[in-house]
């Protein structure tokens, strides 16, 4: 089993969610995060006073899947989250040792 952690633009969340759902990945966890990559941040202004914002709001999606599904899931996320501009995000793939359901005693390894 693998866990995909995808950090994407918040405004793309609906598109990614929808695309993953069409591929059959219904279960996922979404976390509001802040971060920065090679993107330097943006400048906002409040009453004319400039404020540098170098940690930008992003969304992290976590999905757990079988090893052989990872490639197609990454392709799906890329296709639905990409704008082609800096700040589109990153995808990390982590090994998962075990998954256990809380409601029952089921366990997957």
């Amino acid at each position, binding site marked *: 089993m693998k866990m995909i952690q995808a950090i994407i*633009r*918040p*405004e*793309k969340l*609906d*598109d990614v969610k*929808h695309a993953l759902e069409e591929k059959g990945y219904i279960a996922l966890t979404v976390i509001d995060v802040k971060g920065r990559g090679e993107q330097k941040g*943006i*400048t*906002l*202004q*409040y009453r004319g006073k400039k404020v540098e*914002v170098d940690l930008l709001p992003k969304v992290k999606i976590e999905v757990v899947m079988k090893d052989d599904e990872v490639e197609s899931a990454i392709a799906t996320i890329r296709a639905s989250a990409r*704008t082609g501009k800096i700040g589109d995000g990153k995808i990390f793939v982590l090994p998962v040792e075990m998954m256990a359901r809380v409601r029952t005693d089921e366990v997957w390894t």
Partner: protein
Amino acid sequence: MVLDSGDTAWILAATALVMLMTPGVGFFYGGMVRRKNVISMIALSFIAFALVSIQWVLFGYSLSFGPDISGLIGGLGLAGLIGVGQDPSGTSTIPALAFMMYQLVFATVTLAILTSVFAERVKISAFLVFGLLWTTLVYDPLAHWVWGGGWLAGLGALDFAGGTVVHISAGFSALAIALVIGKRRGFGVHTMEPANIPMALLGAALLWFGWFGFNAGSALAANGLAANAFVVTNTAAAAGALAWMAASWYHGRPASLGVVSGAVAGLVAITPAAGYVTPLAAIIIGAVAGIFCYMMMLLRIQKGLDESLDAWSIHGMGGVWGALAVGIFASATVNSYTGLLSGNVAQFTAQIVAVVVSVGYAFVVSYVLARVVDATIGLRVTENEEYVGLDISQHGERTQG
């Protein structure tokens, strides 16, 4: 006539009450859009207020209430408020300046109501241009026709506080603009969750509160008629709130946004009728408005029309119902006019004419204006700006750091 200090005091206070309705609309709408557009939505109302305030002083008031030209429009005789003084004019008992200012806050809130259709996608520069054109070419002529000595009032149509001029015009203009500006990206596909419902409820509270100035102030005097308008306004709002709540309960749960939307529907419907109907008639007018506007909202959603915050279904259709309701329920015990229930068919016919004319005029002119602005400077922000949200893309601000 002689200046009456009681009347003047009440109209000055009522003006301030109505002023609060414009930011009230902003908070009401602002709470219902997504988090990334809350500032933009509230700002549109403030911008509408500032923009129309200046336009009204420079020439808007004169176009609406200046010397009549063939019943169609006011002349520029009062432009820049030259000749609008501290003394009452004509049969009025309040300073001409107080009357001007009272009318100003009506013009501003009308443009604010219209911002419903621009939600989450309008370019701020386009809104400024469109807003100026719209208030000049749609609001000012309609205000003249109904209140400024124009031809519509000559037909005998009754509109106590602005059912046609304010609500029908804003509502049906919003419908026309919706056809031009198009849906928000993701409308009908993604869920669009309201950012802050308590704020929308507070906005609705400001509207309900301000509406006492809107309707009771329209008596233009501190008298019994103002008291009648005050009572029926509250009664219709309450009936509308309960009716919409009941109708939406039937389909699911009695959502708080439904309760206040029903109140607004009741307030809209009683607006043209406030000086002509009894409190018992107000219960019927408000309750019908609550259910009717709720059904119109469902119809809009079913048609896939993104008139985003329901200016059309609540203000437009509520305004139509209210204008017709005057022709049905007007009672001689309140004012010197009667309606269908007293056997006066002519009044009802006059109301239908007023509705058809204001719906048609607002819809057609707004559609053309929207097309022109869209073809020249473009009404919408870019796709990217829309994704990021108007708070950051249009204003360079965000709700929370």
